[in-house]
Protein backbone atom coordinates (compact mmCIF):
# COMPACT_ATOMS: atom_id res chain seq x y z
CA UNK A 1 0.00 0.00 0.00
CA UNK A 2 1.24 3.50 -0.74
CA UNK A 3 0.72 6.67 1.18
CA UNK A 4 -0.64 9.33 -1.13
CA UNK A 5 0.68 12.84 -0.79
CA UNK A 6 -0.70 15.38 -3.19
CA UNK A 7 2.55 17.16 -4.01
CA UNK A 8 5.06 14.36 -3.46
CA UNK A 9 6.74 12.28 -6.07
CA UNK A 10 7.43 8.59 -5.97
CA UNK A 11 10.61 8.70 -7.96
CA UNK A 12 13.01 11.37 -9.02
CA UNK A 13 12.96 9.84 -12.47
CA UNK A 14 9.25 10.49 -12.74
CA UNK A 15 9.78 14.10 -11.90
CA UNK A 16 12.59 14.43 -14.40
CA UNK A 17 10.24 13.22 -17.09
CA UNK A 18 7.63 15.71 -16.02
CA UNK A 19 10.11 18.54 -16.17
CA UNK A 20 11.48 17.49 -19.50
CA UNK A 21 7.97 17.80 -20.85
CA UNK A 22 7.60 21.28 -19.43
CA UNK A 23 10.84 23.09 -20.28
CA UNK A 24 9.13 26.47 -20.39
CA UNK A 25 8.36 26.32 -16.70
CA UNK A 26 11.84 27.40 -15.72
CA UNK A 27 11.57 30.56 -17.76
CA UNK A 28 8.53 31.97 -16.03
CA UNK A 29 9.13 34.78 -13.53
CA UNK A 30 9.63 33.71 -9.93
CA UNK A 31 6.55 33.39 -7.80
CA UNK A 32 6.99 35.36 -4.62
CA UNK A 33 4.69 33.65 -2.22
CA UNK A 34 6.51 32.42 0.86
CA UNK A 35 9.00 29.60 0.98
CA UNK A 36 7.09 26.98 -0.98
CA UNK A 37 9.27 25.82 -3.84
CA UNK A 38 7.67 27.08 -7.00
CA UNK A 39 8.54 23.85 -8.75
CA UNK A 40 5.79 22.19 -6.75
CA UNK A 41 3.31 23.90 -9.08
CA UNK A 42 4.88 22.19 -12.04
CA UNK A 43 4.65 18.69 -10.63
CA UNK A 44 1.32 19.02 -8.84
CA UNK A 45 -0.50 16.95 -11.43
CA UNK A 46 1.92 14.06 -11.30
CA UNK A 47 0.62 11.05 -9.42
CA UNK A 48 2.51 11.15 -6.18
CA UNK A 49 3.02 8.52 -3.55
CA UNK A 50 5.63 7.58 -1.01
CA UNK A 51 6.45 4.00 -0.18
CA UNK A 52 5.68 3.13 3.44
CA UNK A 53 8.57 1.33 5.13
CA UNK A 54 8.39 0.01 8.68
CA UNK A 55 11.71 0.30 10.56
CA UNK A 56 11.33 -1.32 13.98
CA UNK A 57 14.19 -1.21 16.49
CA UNK A 58 16.90 -3.72 15.60
CA UNK A 59 16.96 -6.81 17.77
CA UNK A 60 19.90 -8.07 19.79
CA UNK A 61 20.58 -11.67 20.84
CA UNK A 62 21.85 -10.39 24.19
CA UNK A 63 21.99 -6.91 25.63
CA UNK A 64 25.71 -6.30 26.06
CA UNK A 65 27.72 -3.17 26.68
CA UNK A 66 30.42 -2.65 24.06
CA UNK A 67 32.73 0.31 24.62
CA UNK A 68 30.06 1.86 26.80
CA UNK A 69 27.28 1.36 24.25
CA UNK A 70 24.40 -1.04 24.93
CA UNK A 71 23.50 -3.27 21.98
CA UNK A 72 19.87 -2.88 23.01
CA UNK A 73 20.01 0.91 22.91
CA UNK A 74 21.96 0.86 19.66
CA UNK A 75 19.26 -1.29 18.05
CA UNK A 76 16.80 1.52 18.60
CA UNK A 77 19.26 4.28 17.61
CA UNK A 78 20.29 2.56 14.39
CA UNK A 79 16.65 2.14 13.37
CA UNK A 80 16.08 5.83 14.16
CA UNK A 81 18.96 6.89 11.88
CA UNK A 82 17.75 4.62 9.07
CA UNK A 83 14.20 5.97 9.32
CA UNK A 84 15.49 9.57 9.36
CA UNK A 85 17.66 8.93 6.28
CA UNK A 86 14.76 7.39 4.37
CA UNK A 87 12.43 10.20 5.37
CA UNK A 88 14.94 12.88 4.32
CA UNK A 89 15.26 11.34 0.87
CA UNK A 90 11.67 12.39 0.27
CA UNK A 91 10.83 9.13 -1.44
CA UNK A 92 9.69 7.14 1.57
CA UNK A 93 7.32 7.38 4.49
CA UNK A 94 9.13 5.42 7.19
CA UNK A 95 7.45 4.13 10.33
CA UNK A 96 10.34 4.38 12.77
CA UNK A 97 10.91 2.57 16.07
CA UNK A 98 8.87 5.24 17.83
CA UNK A 99 5.71 4.21 16.01
CA UNK A 100 5.98 0.44 15.49
CA UNK A 101 6.57 -2.46 17.88
CA UNK A 102 10.00 -3.94 18.48
CA UNK A 103 10.97 -7.31 16.99
CA UNK A 104 12.52 -10.41 18.47
CA UNK A 105 15.80 -11.86 17.26
CA UNK A 106 13.83 -14.72 15.74
CA UNK A 107 11.79 -12.34 13.58
CA UNK A 108 14.88 -10.86 11.90
CA UNK A 109 15.04 -13.76 9.42
CA UNK A 110 11.34 -14.68 9.66
CA UNK A 111 9.23 -11.51 9.63
CA UNK A 112 5.58 -11.50 10.66
CA UNK A 113 4.52 -10.12 7.29
CA UNK A 114 0.82 -9.95 8.20
CA UNK A 115 1.64 -7.62 11.10
CA UNK A 116 3.47 -5.19 8.82
CA UNK A 117 0.82 -5.37 6.11
CA UNK A 118 -1.69 -4.45 8.81
CA UNK A 119 0.39 -1.29 9.35
CA UNK A 120 0.10 -0.54 5.61
CA UNK A 121 3.84 -1.01 5.22
CA UNK A 122 4.96 -1.91 1.70
CA UNK A 123 8.35 -2.87 3.05
CA UNK A 124 9.82 -3.68 6.41
CA UNK A 125 13.42 -3.32 7.60
CA UNK A 126 14.70 -5.81 10.15
CA UNK A 127 18.13 -6.06 11.69
CA UNK A 128 20.18 -6.94 14.70
CA UNK A 129 23.07 -5.61 16.74
CA UNK A 130 25.47 -8.09 18.27
CA UNK A 131 28.80 -7.90 20.09
CA UNK A 132 31.43 -9.32 17.75
CA UNK A 133 33.64 -10.89 20.38
CA UNK A 134 36.63 -8.81 19.28
CA UNK A 135 35.43 -5.59 20.88
CA UNK A 136 33.40 -4.57 17.87
CA UNK A 137 29.83 -4.88 16.68
CA UNK A 138 28.09 -6.87 13.99
CA UNK A 139 25.05 -5.18 12.50
CA UNK A 140 22.68 -7.11 10.23
CA UNK A 141 20.37 -5.30 7.82
CA UNK A 142 17.43 -6.90 5.99
CA UNK A 143 14.74 -5.47 3.77
CA UNK A 144 11.55 -7.36 2.96
CA UNK A 145 8.57 -6.88 0.67
CA UNK A 146 5.57 -7.39 2.93
CA UNK A 147 3.08 -8.29 0.18
CA UNK A 148 5.32 -10.81 -1.56
CA UNK A 149 6.98 -12.01 1.61
CA UNK A 150 10.37 -11.84 -0.07
CA UNK A 151 13.79 -10.71 1.08
CA UNK A 152 15.13 -7.77 -0.99
CA UNK A 153 18.32 -6.83 0.90
CA UNK A 154 20.60 -8.73 3.24
CA UNK A 155 23.77 -7.07 4.47
CA UNK A 156 26.06 -7.34 7.48
CA UNK A 157 28.62 -4.88 8.77
CA UNK A 158 31.41 -5.54 11.22
CA UNK A 159 32.27 -2.20 12.75
CA UNK A 160 33.99 -0.45 15.60
CA UNK A 161 31.36 0.61 18.16
CA UNK A 162 31.98 4.32 17.47
CA UNK A 163 31.04 3.76 13.81
CA UNK A 164 27.49 2.57 14.54
CA UNK A 165 26.00 5.51 12.63
CA UNK A 166 27.87 4.40 9.51
CA UNK A 167 26.26 0.96 9.79
CA UNK A 168 22.88 2.69 9.90
CA UNK A 169 23.70 4.85 6.88
CA UNK A 170 24.99 1.86 4.92
CA UNK A 171 21.79 -0.03 5.69
CA UNK A 172 19.71 2.99 4.61
CA UNK A 173 21.80 3.23 1.43
CA UNK A 174 21.19 -0.45 0.64
CA UNK A 175 17.43 0.04 1.10
CA UNK A 176 17.35 3.25 -0.91
CA UNK A 177 19.37 1.76 -3.77
CA UNK A 178 17.31 -1.45 -3.90
CA UNK A 179 13.99 0.38 -3.97
CA UNK A 180 14.84 3.42 -6.10
CA UNK A 181 17.47 2.03 -8.46
CA UNK A 182 19.66 5.03 -7.65
CA UNK A 183 23.21 5.02 -6.33
CA UNK A 184 23.64 5.37 -2.56
CA UNK A 185 24.38 8.67 -0.80
CA UNK A 186 23.68 8.53 2.93
CA UNK A 187 27.09 7.13 3.98
CA UNK A 188 28.97 10.34 3.17
CA UNK A 189 30.21 13.44 4.93
CA UNK A 190 29.86 17.20 4.64
CA UNK A 191 32.40 19.96 5.27
CA UNK A 192 30.95 23.39 5.92
CA UNK A 193 31.49 26.67 7.73
CA UNK A 194 29.99 27.03 11.20
CA UNK A 195 28.99 30.63 11.87
CA UNK A 196 28.40 32.55 15.08
CA UNK A 197 28.65 36.10 16.37
CA UNK A 198 27.25 39.40 15.12
CA UNK A 199 26.63 39.96 11.41
CA UNK A 200 29.35 42.61 11.14
CA UNK A 201 32.02 40.38 12.64
CA UNK A 202 31.02 36.78 12.10
CA UNK A 203 33.19 34.03 13.53
CA UNK A 204 33.51 31.40 10.80
CA UNK A 205 34.96 27.99 11.56
CA UNK A 206 35.70 25.01 9.41
CA UNK A 207 33.56 22.05 10.54
CA UNK A 208 32.72 18.54 9.35
CA UNK A 209 29.81 16.17 9.93
CA UNK A 210 27.99 13.17 8.51
CA UNK A 211 25.51 13.81 5.69
CA UNK A 212 22.68 13.87 8.26
CA UNK A 213 24.48 16.20 10.69
CA UNK A 214 25.76 13.42 12.96
CA UNK A 215 29.35 13.11 14.25
CA UNK A 216 29.82 16.87 14.13
CA UNK A 217 33.32 18.24 14.68
CA UNK A 218 34.84 21.72 14.55
CA UNK A 219 38.18 21.85 12.77
CA UNK A 220 39.40 25.44 13.15
CA UNK A 221 39.00 27.62 16.22
CA UNK A 222 37.56 30.68 14.51
CA UNK A 223 40.47 33.05 15.07
CA UNK A 224 40.98 33.31 11.31
CA UNK A 225 37.98 33.70 9.03
CA UNK A 226 37.44 30.43 7.15
CA UNK A 227 35.34 30.04 3.99
CA UNK A 228 34.61 27.71 1.06
CA UNK A 229 35.82 24.27 2.21
CA UNK A 230 35.91 21.18 -0.02
CA UNK A 231 36.63 17.60 1.08
CA UNK A 232 39.29 15.75 -0.88
CA UNK A 233 37.78 12.70 -2.62
CA UNK A 234 39.46 10.39 -0.04
CA UNK A 235 38.19 12.52 2.88
CA UNK A 236 41.72 12.89 4.24
CA UNK A 237 42.08 16.58 3.51
CA UNK A 238 40.05 19.73 3.16
CA UNK A 239 40.94 22.56 0.83
CA UNK A 240 39.61 25.92 1.99
CA UNK A 241 40.30 29.63 2.23
CA UNK A 242 41.68 31.11 5.44
CA UNK A 243 42.16 34.77 6.29
CA UNK A 244 45.09 33.73 8.50
CA UNK A 245 47.41 36.71 9.08
CA UNK A 246 44.92 38.89 7.23
CA UNK A 247 45.61 37.47 3.84
CA UNK A 248 43.29 35.55 1.55
CA UNK A 249 44.87 32.22 0.75
CA UNK A 250 43.97 28.65 -0.16
CA UNK A 251 45.18 26.03 2.31
CA UNK A 252 45.05 22.24 2.32
CA UNK A 253 44.18 21.00 5.79
CA UNK A 254 45.26 17.46 6.70
CA UNK A 255 42.50 16.13 8.97
CA UNK A 256 44.49 13.39 10.71
CA UNK A 257 47.68 15.41 11.14
CA UNK A 258 45.88 18.62 12.09
CA UNK A 259 48.28 20.63 9.95
CA UNK A 260 47.81 22.77 6.88
CA UNK A 261 49.89 23.96 3.96
CA UNK A 262 49.51 26.57 1.26
CA UNK A 263 48.34 25.33 -2.12
CA UNK A 264 50.62 27.82 -3.85
CA UNK A 265 53.02 30.52 -2.74
CA UNK A 266 51.88 33.92 -3.92
CA UNK A 267 51.62 37.47 -2.70
CA UNK A 268 48.21 37.64 -4.39
CA UNK A 269 44.86 36.59 -2.96
CA UNK A 270 43.92 32.98 -3.79
CA UNK A 271 40.41 31.66 -3.22
CA UNK A 272 37.49 29.53 -4.52
CA UNK A 273 39.35 26.16 -4.45
CA UNK A 274 38.07 22.83 -5.83
CA UNK A 275 39.59 19.34 -6.06
CA UNK A 276 39.77 17.44 -9.31
CA UNK A 277 37.75 14.20 -9.14
CA UNK A 278 40.96 12.17 -8.67
CA UNK A 279 42.19 14.48 -5.92
CA UNK A 280 45.46 15.17 -7.72
CA UNK A 281 44.82 18.72 -8.84
CA UNK A 282 43.29 21.84 -7.38
CA UNK A 283 41.45 24.58 -9.18
CA UNK A 284 41.60 28.03 -7.61
CA UNK A 285 41.09 31.68 -8.44
CA UNK A 286 43.73 34.35 -7.99
CA UNK A 287 43.40 38.14 -8.09
CA UNK A 288 46.37 39.96 -9.59
CA UNK A 289 46.15 43.73 -9.53
CA UNK A 290 42.40 43.49 -9.11
CA UNK A 291 41.82 41.07 -11.98
CA UNK A 292 40.73 37.55 -11.02
CA UNK A 293 41.49 34.51 -13.17
CA UNK A 294 41.28 30.76 -12.71
CA UNK A 295 44.34 28.56 -12.23
CA UNK A 296 45.03 24.86 -11.85
CA UNK A 297 47.88 23.38 -9.82
CA UNK A 298 48.97 19.96 -8.61
CA UNK A 299 47.73 19.25 -5.09
CA UNK A 300 51.38 18.50 -4.27
CA UNK A 301 52.52 21.94 -5.42
CA UNK A 302 54.42 22.88 -8.54
CA UNK A 303 53.83 25.51 -11.17
CA UNK A 304 50.24 26.68 -11.56
CA UNK A 305 48.64 26.78 -14.99
CA UNK A 306 46.58 29.87 -15.79
CA UNK A 307 43.35 28.88 -17.51
CA UNK A 308 41.55 32.19 -18.14
CA UNK A 309 42.85 35.57 -19.26
CA UNK A 310 39.92 37.89 -19.84
CA UNK A 311 39.86 41.34 -18.22
CA UNK A 312 36.63 40.35 -16.46
CA UNK A 313 36.29 38.38 -13.26
CA UNK A 314 36.75 34.67 -13.95
CA UNK A 315 36.17 32.82 -10.72
CA UNK A 316 35.20 29.57 -9.07
CA UNK A 317 34.88 26.44 -11.07
CA UNK A 318 34.15 22.77 -10.74
CA UNK A 319 35.50 19.75 -12.63
CA UNK A 320 33.29 17.42 -14.63
CA UNK A 321 33.30 13.94 -13.05
CA UNK A 322 35.52 12.62 -15.87
CA UNK A 323 38.04 15.37 -15.06
CA UNK A 324 38.11 16.65 -18.65
CA UNK A 325 36.10 19.84 -18.39
CA UNK A 326 35.60 22.72 -15.98
CA UNK A 327 32.49 24.78 -15.40
CA UNK A 328 33.12 28.29 -14.01
CA UNK A 329 31.65 31.76 -13.77
CA UNK A 330 32.72 34.94 -15.50
CA UNK A 331 31.41 38.48 -15.89
CA UNK A 332 33.22 38.98 -19.21
CA UNK A 333 29.86 39.54 -20.91
CA UNK A 334 28.99 42.31 -18.45
CA UNK A 335 27.26 40.17 -15.84
CA UNK A 336 27.97 36.94 -14.00
CA UNK A 337 27.30 33.97 -16.28
CA UNK A 338 28.30 30.31 -16.44
CA UNK A 339 30.90 29.00 -18.88
CA UNK A 340 32.55 25.67 -19.60
CA UNK A 341 36.08 25.01 -20.82
CA UNK A 342 38.50 22.16 -21.29
CA UNK A 343 40.92 21.61 -18.41
CA UNK A 344 43.70 23.29 -20.41
CA UNK A 345 41.55 26.44 -20.67
CA UNK A 346 40.63 25.96 -24.32
CA UNK A 347 37.13 26.11 -25.80
CA UNK A 348 35.57 28.55 -23.34
CA UNK A 349 31.84 28.76 -23.99
CA UNK A 350 29.00 30.48 -22.21
CA UNK A 351 26.15 28.12 -21.34
CA UNK A 352 23.74 30.26 -19.25
CA UNK A 353 21.27 32.32 -21.26
CA UNK A 354 18.12 32.28 -19.14
CA UNK A 355 18.22 35.94 -18.09
CA UNK A 356 19.53 37.21 -14.76
CA UNK A 357 22.92 36.45 -13.26
CA UNK A 358 24.32 32.98 -12.63
CA UNK A 359 27.02 31.95 -10.17
CA UNK A 360 28.64 29.08 -8.23
CA UNK A 361 28.31 26.36 -10.90
CA UNK A 362 28.85 22.85 -9.57
CA UNK A 363 29.06 19.81 -11.82
CA UNK A 364 26.98 16.82 -10.70
CA UNK A 365 28.97 13.64 -9.85
CA UNK A 366 26.73 11.94 -12.41
CA UNK A 367 27.83 14.40 -15.06
CA UNK A 368 24.32 15.07 -16.31
CA UNK A 369 23.60 18.41 -14.64
CA UNK A 370 25.21 21.58 -13.38
CA UNK A 371 23.81 23.20 -10.24
CA UNK A 372 24.07 26.96 -9.82
CA UNK A 373 22.92 30.04 -7.94
CA UNK A 374 20.64 32.27 -10.00
CA UNK A 375 20.27 35.91 -9.05
CA UNK A 376 17.34 37.94 -10.28
CA UNK A 377 14.08 39.50 -9.22
CA UNK A 378 15.52 40.23 -5.77
CA UNK A 379 16.12 36.55 -5.04
CA UNK A 380 18.96 34.05 -5.04
CA UNK A 381 17.73 30.61 -6.02
CA UNK A 382 19.36 27.25 -6.56
CA UNK A 383 18.77 25.57 -9.89
CA UNK A 384 20.13 23.04 -12.35
CA UNK A 385 20.81 22.95 -16.09
CA UNK A 386 22.48 20.53 -18.45
CA UNK A 387 26.21 20.96 -19.21
CA UNK A 388 25.24 22.65 -22.48
CA UNK A 389 22.86 25.04 -20.75
CA UNK A 390 19.55 23.35 -21.53
CA UNK A 391 16.64 22.34 -19.34
CA UNK A 392 17.08 25.03 -16.71
CA UNK A 393 15.02 24.41 -13.60
CA UNK A 394 14.96 26.33 -10.34
CA UNK A 395 14.62 24.17 -7.23
CA UNK A 396 14.32 26.70 -4.41
CA UNK A 397 12.59 29.98 -3.75
CA UNK A 398 13.82 32.21 -0.96
CA UNK A 399 15.49 35.56 -0.33
CA UNK A 400 19.00 34.18 -0.65
CA UNK A 401 19.82 30.56 -1.43
CA UNK A 402 23.41 30.09 -2.48
CA UNK A 403 26.23 27.69 -3.34
CA UNK A 404 24.77 24.27 -4.22
CA UNK A 405 26.79 21.10 -3.58
CA UNK A 406 25.82 17.64 -4.85
CA UNK A 407 25.08 14.43 -3.02
CA UNK A 408 27.38 11.57 -4.11
CA UNK A 409 24.65 10.15 -6.35
CA UNK A 410 23.75 13.48 -7.97
CA UNK A 411 20.14 13.35 -6.81
CA UNK A 412 20.14 15.75 -3.84
CA UNK A 413 21.63 19.21 -3.40
CA UNK A 414 22.71 20.98 -0.24
CA UNK A 415 23.09 24.77 -0.14
CA UNK A 416 22.92 27.59 2.38
CA UNK A 417 20.05 29.97 2.95
CA UNK A 418 20.58 33.48 4.31
CA UNK A 419 17.85 35.54 5.92
CA UNK A 420 17.79 39.32 5.52
CA UNK A 421 18.20 42.04 8.10
CA UNK A 422 20.50 42.99 10.94
CA UNK A 423 19.95 39.61 12.55
CA UNK A 424 20.28 37.79 9.26
CA UNK A 425 21.74 34.29 9.53
CA UNK A 426 22.81 31.48 7.26
CA UNK A 427 21.61 27.90 7.65
CA UNK A 428 22.19 24.66 5.74
CA UNK A 429 19.44 23.16 3.61
CA UNK A 430 18.89 20.20 1.36
CA UNK A 431 16.58 19.77 -1.62
CA UNK A 432 16.12 16.93 -4.09
CA UNK A 433 15.94 17.32 -7.85
CA UNK A 434 12.16 17.60 -7.80
CA UNK A 435 12.45 20.75 -5.69
CA UNK A 436 9.73 19.36 -3.46
CA UNK A 437 11.69 17.71 -0.69
CA UNK A 438 13.25 20.65 1.09
CA UNK A 439 14.81 20.10 4.53
CA UNK A 440 16.93 22.13 6.90
CA UNK A 441 20.06 20.36 8.10
CA UNK A 442 20.66 20.37 11.85
CA UNK A 443 23.89 22.12 12.87
CA UNK A 444 25.02 23.26 16.33
CA UNK A 445 25.53 26.83 15.08
CA UNK A 446 24.55 28.67 11.92
CA UNK A 447 26.11 27.29 8.75
CA UNK A 448 27.21 28.18 5.23
CA UNK A 449 29.32 26.89 2.33
CA UNK A 450 28.38 23.19 2.54
CA UNK A 451 30.54 20.75 0.58
CA UNK A 452 29.24 17.21 0.18
CA UNK A 453 31.86 14.51 -0.28
CA UNK A 454 31.60 11.17 -2.10
CA UNK A 455 30.39 7.87 -0.65
CA UNK A 456 32.81 6.95 2.14
CA UNK A 457 35.51 4.50 1.13
Amino acid sequence: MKRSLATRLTLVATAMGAFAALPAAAQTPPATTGDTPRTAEVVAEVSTERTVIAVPAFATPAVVNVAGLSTGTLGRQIADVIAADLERSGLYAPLGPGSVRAITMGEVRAPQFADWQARNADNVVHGFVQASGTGGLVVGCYLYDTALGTELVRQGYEIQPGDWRRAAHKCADAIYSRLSGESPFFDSRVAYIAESGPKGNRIKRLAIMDSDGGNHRFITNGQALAISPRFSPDYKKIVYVSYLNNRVRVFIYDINAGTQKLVTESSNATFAPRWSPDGRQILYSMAVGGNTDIYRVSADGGTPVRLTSTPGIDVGGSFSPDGRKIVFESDRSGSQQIYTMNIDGSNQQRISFGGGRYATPEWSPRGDLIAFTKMGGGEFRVGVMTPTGGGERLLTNSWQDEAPTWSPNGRVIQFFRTSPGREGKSTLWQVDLTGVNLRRLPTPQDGSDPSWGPILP
Partner: protein
Amino acid sequence: MTIRKTTAMIAAITMLTVGACAKKAPDTLPPAPDGSGTDAGAGTGTGVVPGSQEDFLASVGAMGDRIFFDLDQYNVDAQDQATLQSQAQWLARNPAVRVTLEGHADERGTRDYNIALGERRANAAKNYLASIGVDPSRIDVISYGKERPAALGSTEEAWAQNRRAVTVVIGR
Protein backbone atom coordinates in the same frame (compact mmCIF):
# COMPACT_ATOMS: atom_id res chain seq x y z
CA MET B 1 54.00 61.59 33.24
CA THR B 2 50.24 61.66 32.84
CA ILE B 3 48.15 58.58 32.27
CA ARG B 4 47.20 59.88 28.88
CA LYS B 5 50.79 60.07 27.70
CA THR B 6 51.52 56.60 29.00
CA THR B 7 48.60 55.22 27.06
CA ALA B 8 49.78 56.95 23.95
CA MET B 9 53.23 55.48 24.30
CA ILE B 10 51.85 52.00 24.69
CA ALA B 11 49.79 52.53 21.60
CA ALA B 12 52.84 53.67 19.69
CA ILE B 13 54.83 50.63 20.76
CA THR B 14 51.99 48.39 19.73
CA MET B 15 51.87 50.00 16.32
CA LEU B 16 55.59 49.47 15.82
CA THR B 17 55.23 45.81 16.70
CA VAL B 18 52.36 45.46 14.28
CA GLY B 19 54.35 47.24 11.62
CA ALA B 20 57.20 44.78 12.02
CA CYS B 21 55.11 41.95 10.64
CA ALA B 22 54.02 43.20 7.29
CA LYS B 23 50.42 42.86 6.14
CA LYS B 24 49.07 42.67 9.65
CA ALA B 25 45.80 44.57 9.74
CA PRO B 26 44.33 46.20 12.84
CA ASP B 27 42.29 44.21 15.27
CA THR B 28 39.07 45.98 14.42
CA LEU B 29 37.73 45.39 10.94
CA PRO B 30 36.26 47.56 9.71
CA PRO B 31 37.53 50.39 11.88
CA ALA B 32 34.93 52.13 13.96
CA PRO B 33 34.48 55.73 12.79
CA ASP B 34 35.90 57.04 16.06
CA GLY B 35 38.97 54.84 15.77
CA SER B 36 38.31 53.06 19.04
CA GLY B 37 40.46 50.07 19.79
CA THR B 38 43.81 51.57 18.94
CA ASP B 39 44.41 54.47 21.26
CA ALA B 40 42.63 55.45 24.42
CA GLY B 41 43.85 58.99 23.94
CA ALA B 42 42.11 59.42 20.60
CA GLY B 43 39.65 62.24 20.19
CA THR B 44 41.27 64.46 22.73
CA GLY B 45 43.39 66.23 20.19
CA THR B 46 46.56 66.24 22.20
CA GLY B 47 46.61 62.45 22.69
CA VAL B 48 46.64 61.54 19.01
CA VAL B 49 49.85 59.87 17.88
CA PRO B 50 51.13 61.30 14.61
CA GLY B 51 50.89 58.72 11.85
CA SER B 52 48.29 56.67 13.73
CA GLN B 53 44.85 55.58 12.58
CA GLU B 54 43.39 58.29 14.85
CA ASP B 55 45.62 60.89 13.30
CA PHE B 56 44.56 59.68 9.85
CA LEU B 57 40.86 59.88 10.69
CA ALA B 58 41.29 63.27 12.34
CA SER B 59 42.84 64.46 9.08
CA VAL B 60 40.50 62.91 6.49
CA GLY B 61 37.30 63.02 8.52
CA ALA B 62 35.23 60.29 10.13
CA MET B 63 34.14 58.74 6.82
CA GLY B 64 37.08 60.07 4.83
CA ASP B 65 38.83 56.71 5.12
CA ARG B 66 36.49 55.10 2.59
CA ILE B 67 35.07 55.47 -0.87
CA PHE B 68 31.81 53.96 -2.09
CA PHE B 69 30.81 52.15 -5.25
CA ASP B 70 27.68 51.62 -7.26
CA LEU B 71 26.18 48.16 -7.62
CA ASP B 72 28.68 45.79 -9.25
CA GLN B 73 30.91 48.78 -10.12
CA TYR B 74 34.49 49.61 -9.19
CA ASN B 75 35.15 52.95 -10.87
CA VAL B 76 36.57 55.83 -8.82
CA ASP B 77 34.30 58.85 -9.38
CA ALA B 78 34.93 62.55 -8.66
CA GLN B 79 33.76 62.32 -5.06
CA ASP B 80 35.96 59.27 -4.49
CA GLN B 81 38.89 61.15 -6.02
CA ALA B 82 38.44 64.01 -3.57
CA THR B 83 38.41 61.55 -0.67
CA LEU B 84 41.51 59.76 -1.92
CA GLN B 85 43.29 63.09 -2.53
CA SER B 86 42.70 63.96 1.09
CA GLN B 87 44.12 60.60 2.10
CA ALA B 88 47.11 61.13 -0.18
CA GLN B 89 47.88 64.46 1.49
CA TRP B 90 48.01 62.79 4.87
CA LEU B 91 50.10 59.95 3.48
CA ALA B 92 52.52 62.53 2.06
CA ARG B 93 52.88 64.06 5.52
CA ASN B 94 53.48 60.62 7.00
CA PRO B 95 55.80 59.00 4.47
CA ALA B 96 56.79 56.09 6.70
CA VAL B 97 53.22 54.91 7.23
CA ARG B 98 51.87 51.84 5.48
CA VAL B 99 48.19 51.27 4.82
CA THR B 100 45.91 48.42 3.90
CA LEU B 101 43.14 49.02 1.39
CA GLU B 102 40.20 46.80 2.24
CA GLY B 103 37.77 46.00 -0.56
CA HIS B 104 34.21 45.13 0.38
CA ALA B 105 30.99 44.15 -1.35
CA ASP B 106 27.37 44.11 -0.27
CA GLU B 107 25.62 40.89 0.74
CA ARG B 108 23.70 40.63 -2.53
CA GLY B 109 26.41 38.77 -4.36
CA THR B 110 27.84 35.28 -4.19
CA ARG B 111 30.79 34.75 -1.88
CA ASP B 112 33.66 34.09 -4.28
CA TYR B 113 32.56 36.68 -6.83
CA ASN B 114 32.34 39.25 -4.06
CA ILE B 115 35.93 38.56 -3.04
CA ALA B 116 36.96 39.20 -6.64
CA LEU B 117 34.81 42.34 -6.69
CA GLY B 118 36.37 43.58 -3.46
CA GLU B 119 39.80 43.04 -5.02
CA ARG B 120 38.76 45.17 -7.97
CA ARG B 121 37.53 47.96 -5.71
CA ALA B 122 40.54 48.00 -3.41
CA ASN B 123 42.88 47.98 -6.40
CA ALA B 124 40.95 50.79 -8.07
CA ALA B 125 41.51 52.90 -4.96
CA LYS B 126 45.15 51.82 -4.75
CA ASN B 127 45.74 52.65 -8.39
CA TYR B 128 44.23 56.09 -7.99
CA LEU B 129 46.39 56.81 -4.94
CA ALA B 130 49.42 55.67 -6.92
CA SER B 131 48.43 57.90 -9.83
CA ILE B 132 48.55 60.95 -7.55
CA GLY B 133 51.93 60.13 -6.10
CA VAL B 134 51.52 57.62 -3.28
CA ASP B 135 54.16 54.90 -3.50
CA PRO B 136 52.10 51.75 -4.22
CA SER B 137 54.58 49.66 -2.22
CA ARG B 138 53.14 51.36 0.88
CA ILE B 139 49.69 49.95 0.10
CA ASP B 140 48.57 46.40 0.81
CA VAL B 141 45.26 45.17 -0.56
CA ILE B 142 42.82 42.71 0.96
CA SER B 143 39.32 41.83 -0.10
CA TYR B 144 36.73 40.84 2.46
CA GLY B 145 33.99 40.36 -0.10
CA LYS B 146 30.73 40.30 1.83
CA GLU B 147 32.30 38.95 5.03
CA ARG B 148 32.55 42.20 6.99
CA PRO B 149 29.60 44.52 6.36
CA ALA B 150 29.79 47.98 7.95
CA ALA B 151 26.02 48.49 7.83
CA LEU B 152 24.07 45.46 9.00
CA GLY B 153 20.66 46.01 7.47
CA SER B 154 19.37 44.48 4.24
CA THR B 155 18.35 47.73 2.59
CA GLU B 156 19.60 49.63 -0.44
CA GLU B 157 21.06 52.20 1.95
CA ALA B 158 22.97 49.59 3.95
CA TRP B 159 24.23 47.90 0.79
CA ALA B 160 25.47 51.26 -0.55
CA GLN B 161 27.50 51.74 2.65
CA ASN B 162 28.98 48.27 2.32
CA ARG B 163 30.18 48.60 -1.29
CA ARG B 164 33.37 50.30 -0.19
CA ALA B 165 37.14 50.49 -0.16
CA VAL B 166 38.53 51.48 3.24
CA THR B 167 42.02 52.75 3.90
CA VAL B 168 43.38 51.48 7.21
CA VAL B 169 46.68 52.56 8.77
CA ILE B 170 48.74 49.51 9.69
CA GLY B 171 51.85 51.20 11.02
CA ARG B 172 55.21 52.15 9.65
